[in-house]
């Protein structure tokens, strides 16, 4: 399947600060997640793909065009930018219909009603955006991105600020768009959020692409990574740690005031071995919990792995 969005060797820097470095990927019809921690470069990549900023190096093409050079690309490109500012003096209908008109839609009024219906905002269609909550503004932003029925959608954190019901609605909408053959790039810093929408992900860490592929592969990669586990068996902790020496999948161990921290290369093997060994040692496990299992450490692992430094 031919690529609809091409990002080739793209870098973007502001003075001494590198926002993204040497990022290359291609998108085909379907939903792709753009995953990364805050400040990873997701918004910069979306800005570059949107034509809002020129790359310092490399090439970006959307449907074979550079939107900065050829604005006609925006006929087929829908964008929900970062931030929630929309003209507060306009109603939701006016915002969406005006942008439909500017994008050359044949019947802007009908298209606006349809798009606002798609995001479930019919009830507030004639209310001024100035009085909207963040979630409602997000919905209007999404409606204006859909109003001209674009082939490519670039959505920057579209679930931010949405209540659970609207969040579910938007997830289903994005899934439907992907199934309908649209190319959707949707950014988020939450893996399980992206997982629900996108079968594929591109992972950025500190401005670099560190992983790319099916969401299930990335999930497996994350699950298989070495992890630190804290155990606490009270007075028997030291005995239990001694018995763990030499167990497959168990690396470095250290005792501290709250028990012991075990570096596990193979978490599954460690988990299988732990309970029988505790029984043998007569130890009662009071606590077994992962250490540093937050997303930041996941991204740090992927970054290290991409640089060949992971174990």
């Amino acid at each position, binding site marked *: 399947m031919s690529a609809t969005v091409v990002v080739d060797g793209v870098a973007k820097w502001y003075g001494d600060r590198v926002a993204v470095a040497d990022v290359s990927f291609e998108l085909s019809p379907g939903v792709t997640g753009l995953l990364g921690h805050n400040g990873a470069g997701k918004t910069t990549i979306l800005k570059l793909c949107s034509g*809002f900023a020129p790359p310092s190096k490399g090439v970006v093409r959307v449907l074979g065009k550079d939107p900065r050079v050829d604005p006609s690309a*925006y*006929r087929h490109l829908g964008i929900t*930018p970062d*931030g929630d500012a929309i003209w507060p*003096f*306009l109603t939701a209908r006016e915002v969406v219909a005006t942008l439909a008109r500017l*994008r050359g839609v044949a019947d802007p009024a009908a298209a606006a009603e349809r798009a606002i219906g798609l995001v479930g905002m019919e009830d507030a269609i004639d209310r001024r955006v100035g009085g909207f909550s963040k979630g409602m503004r997000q919905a209007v932003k999404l409606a204006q991105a859909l109003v001209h029925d674009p082939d490519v959608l670039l959505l920057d954190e579209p679930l931010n600020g949405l209540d659970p019901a609207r969040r579910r609605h938007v997830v289903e909408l994005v899934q439907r768009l992907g199934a309908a053959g649209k190319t959707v790039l949707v950014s988020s810093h939450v893996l399980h959020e992206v997982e629900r929408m996108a079968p594929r992900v591109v992972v950025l860490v500190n401005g670099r692409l560190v992983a790319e592929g099916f969401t299930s592969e990335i999930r497996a990669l994350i699950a298989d990574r070495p992890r630190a586990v804290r155990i606490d068996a009270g007075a028997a902790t030291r005995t239990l740690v001694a018995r763990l020496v030499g167990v497959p999948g168990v690396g470095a161990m250290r005792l501290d005031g709250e028990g012991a921290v075990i570096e596990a290369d193979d978490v599954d093997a460690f988990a299988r071995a732990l309970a029988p060994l505790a029984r043998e040692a007569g130890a009662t496990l009071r606590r077994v919990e992962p250490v540093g299992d937050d997303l930041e450490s996941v991204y740090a692992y992927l970054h290290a792995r991409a640089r060949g430094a992971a174990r």
Partner: protein
Amino acid sequence: MTGVVAVLLLRGVVRGKRMFGLGAVALAPVLLALVATGVHVPDPTTFVAGVLESLFLPTVAAFVALILAAGVLGDERDDGTILFLAATPLPRRTLVLGAFLAATAAALAILLPAAVVVILAAGSVTIGGLLHLVAGTILTVAAYCAVFLFLSLATRRPVIFGVLYILIWESVIAGFAPSAQRLSIAGYGKTFVADALPDAGRGGVPDWDPTASLVVLVLVIVVGVTASTWALRRAELP
């Protein structure tokens, strides 16, 4: 589509207290002119002409145009709404033209009534004189808006640079050095406005051909809008 963009941007730029503040600025020459006619100024015509030529065009009109032209796309860029306009297939020229028209219309809504009141205070004015005044004000304000629109897209501090230009160049240097008037927007505008005044009020006005002044002001507008289009194409949006 220029009209749709212009109306949208006009609605944005006239919101809030800004228009009231600028209206108060435009009241200054009006009050001066009315006071001059109310009290016994020896030569009210010359006085009012001086207000029009030395205060209204080079300072008040320039300042009002600066604030509105700097805000029309500057505000959109600051709050991010410019991205919605940028994400349309419209040529960047259309966006700039819409912004130029919005800023000029908003500025004229404040300045034209003030100019008319000032000129009426000067004494007997003909219909032809009024038309000269309106044409001169429109052209001068439009030229200022084109230049300041470019400034708003080319720099991060358009108001500071604009105020320096108005205070140092338009109000001081061009006022004292006749040759500097050749590079002053107000200088060209005055040649029209002066035709609205009785002969007594033409003291500080350059003796230029109004047609040449018209050409220069139109050129300034064309160059300003073209340069703004170029700057918007190159601009990095938020």
